[in-house]
């Protein structure tokens, strides 16, 4: 195809004349600018980041704060919620060999059975912890406990033991006396999970009488035949600070955490009334060390 078909649309002479005067050139700056931009356009650019990327630091901070707040709320709810503790306590323990001895109360809530059920096995009273006031007597108490009778698993397997427990219950003896039937490892695992119920000789316990009986103790904790579930329940129910001491029983710390001053005072009075002044004095010294600002009753102030 002829691009210039006729003289009407193309004139070679005019074209030649035009080109004679067409000598202008763009400046070197113009050329450098265009060539520079053309070359830079081919260079690989940094990967374009999404728009939200500029907020990455605030977003990360907010996420960390949200997670921390959630964990804190979860922790506080788990450690301070009474429902959580009660729920943990009310959970039925896994069936063990000792449950055969208490089959009549196996399905009842543990706290209820501890307070009222006469059929509760002696091995159920497992929640008390050794008292610092009686810490010096711990060895002798252990000996007494051993001398008194077989351990809870043995009792659970023995119908005679169950009968004796029923007899004691019907005689109005407080449950605290039965805690000594628990082997020491199981007792250690359950320390700190309930209200304080210091270990006392039977005579002291009976002297304390109903005051101890009204203490909300979880005496119906699982039998020691299954110590691992007990430990699990104790860990879940106990406050976070008390859990380590429950696993490794210290002579004073669990009791100090659990026992109220008024209750301690009553125990000291009971020791004094029974003529065990040395033990009463030792316990009083421990009490003063624990509660230096506590105003002692006059009868105890008269103690030497």
């Amino acid at each position, binding site marked *: 195809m002829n*691009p*210039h078909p006729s003289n009407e649309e193309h004139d070679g002479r*005019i074209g030649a*004349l035009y080109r004679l005067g067409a000598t*202008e050139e*763009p400046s070197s700056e*113009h050329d450098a600018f265009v060539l520079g931009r*053309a070359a830079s356009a*081919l260079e690989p650019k940094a990967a374009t980041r999404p728009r939200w990327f500029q907020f990455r630091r605030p977003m990360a901070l907010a996420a960390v704060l949200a997670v921390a707040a959630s964990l804190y709320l979860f922790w506080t709810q788990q450690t301070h919620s009474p429902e959580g503790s009660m729920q943990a306590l009310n959970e039925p323990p896994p069936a063990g060999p000792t449950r055969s001895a208490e089959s009549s109360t196996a399905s009842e809530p543990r706290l209820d059975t501890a307070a009222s059920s006469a059929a509760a096995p002696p091995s159920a009273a497992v929640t008390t912890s050794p008292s610092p006031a009686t810490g010096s007597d711990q060895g002798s108490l252990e000996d007494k406990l051993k001398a008194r009778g077989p351990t809870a698993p043995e009792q659970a397997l023995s119908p005679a033991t169950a009968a004796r427990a029923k007899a004691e219950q019907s005689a109005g003896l407080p449950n605290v006396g039965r805690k000594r039937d628990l082997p020491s490892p199981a007792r250690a695992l359950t320390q700190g999970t309930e209200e304080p119920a210091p270990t006392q000789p039977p005579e002291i316990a009976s002297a304390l009488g109903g005051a101890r009986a009204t203490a909300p103790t979880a005496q119906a904790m699982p039998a020691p035949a299954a110590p691992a579930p007990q430990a699990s329940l104790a860990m879940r129910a106990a406050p976070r600070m008390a859990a380590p001491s429950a696993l490794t029983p210290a002579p004073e710390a669990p009791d100090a955490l659990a026992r109220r001053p008024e209750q301690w005072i009553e125990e000291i009075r009971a020791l004094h009334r029974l003529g065990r002044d040395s033990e009463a004095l030792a316990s009083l010294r421990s009490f003063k060390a624990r509660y230096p600002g506590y105003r002692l009753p006059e009868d105890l102030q008269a103690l030497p």
Partner: protein
Amino acid sequence: MTDEALMCAYRDGDPHAFEVLFLRHRSAFYRYLLRQSSASVAEELSQDCWMKLIGARKSYEVSAKFTTWLYRIGHNRLIDHFRATDRSALASYANEEDLQAVLESVPETAHREPQNQLETGQLARRLARALRDLPASQREAFLLQYEGNLTVEEIATATGVGRETAKSRLRYALATLRRALAEEIP
């Protein structure tokens, strides 16, 4: 290597191809803009057009001649410039039918070779003045043909008009220039 092949090579990442392409067309394209504006405006418009071309390299496909594409970019940029600065130049694109009477009144000039170099120089200057006095649309059509070496069809494509319109513009422009030169060349 054709213009289209060079542009494809540049699109594919060869900066040297663009350099060859640019040096091949930079002067003619600059003069195309210069004849329709001023020196400073022409450089600015030329830079804008080349930047636009660089930016559009990724979508470049060989669907037409490279020069047709380049001069269409230049035409659109000029129209934008006229809209902003020179409405009268813009109006010339709409009233070209009125020039039919003028064209018919222009006598055909005899083809005569200039006598010497001095006379040739005088004719070139006279042609430049006559070109400057042309309506914008005719001047552009003339420049597209003699600077861009575009055909009538390519001129039509570059300026966005029909072939007949482009052809008429060229005829008017040449007739006017011939008449202007006839006064110098008896």
